């Protein structure tokens, strides 16, 4: 699955807006994830997952920074996220199904904050983009 030029442009344009609230969106996306799919909390027994917790905000930032890296290197996501890919494959080993769940929650957060920008085409581009990111992060699993 490759992104067309138009799709890459859509991702980059929206990212410019998202980046201004990256930390808040990251935290909100995780909050959506843990509330909607409680089984995902099993990966964070060491975290305080209450709303507004510092760890939640910190981790949300981490996730959004990585996505930002992928946006900046949208022509070579695999290269940009190589280290993260290894981390997830050998250390974290988060089951691949969870990447879809988090991607969905990120889309919800972005849609809720930028409703007029979040057209069906933009939605499609972002869904594909996050799907690519997820693929890269799970491709070394086996």
């Amino acid at each position: 699955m490759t992104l067309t030029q138009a799709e890459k442009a859509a991702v980059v344009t929206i990212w410019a807006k998202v980046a201004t609230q990256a930390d808040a969106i990251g935290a909100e996306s995780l909050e959506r994830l843990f509330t909607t799919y409680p089984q995902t909390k099993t990966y964070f027994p060491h975290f305080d997952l209450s709303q507004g917790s510092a760890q939640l905000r910190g981790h949300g930032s981490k996730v959004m920074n990585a996505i930002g890296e992928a946006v900046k290197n949208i022509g070579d996501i695999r290269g940009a996220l190589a280290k993260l890919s290894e981390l997830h494959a050998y250390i974290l080993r988060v089951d691949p199904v969870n990447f879809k769940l988090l991607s969905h929650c990120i889309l919800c957060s972005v849609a809720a904050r930028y409703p007029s920008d979040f057209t069906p085409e933009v939605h499609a581009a972002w869904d594909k983009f996050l799907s690519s990111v997820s693929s890269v992060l799970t491709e070394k699993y086996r």
Partner: protein
Amino acid sequence: IVYPWTQRFFDNFGNLSSPTAIIGNPKVRAHGKKVLTSFGEAVKNLENLKATYSKLSELHCEKLHVDPENFRLLGDILIIVLAAHFTKDFTPACQATWQKLVGVVAHALAYKYH
């Protein structure tokens, strides 16, 4: 638009060749209304979803031949549309509840499959 392969079920809908065509397509609009109305029935019959969707389930299996995975895809799209529509009112708790609803509706629609 997001999952173009789902167009396979709608050969008789006319022009679905581009996002603009899809958004302006009257059959798409009419079908969206049908689906949402059906959701309304679900909300009114939360205690008895399997019975409420029994005939629709048989229809989707025997006549329409829709893979139940598509119910999940549509449910997730509905959630995102709600997020864009209700913005900050569509809180995590609200999303969690609605995900459960689309999940049980999808389950009820798939229940009569054989």
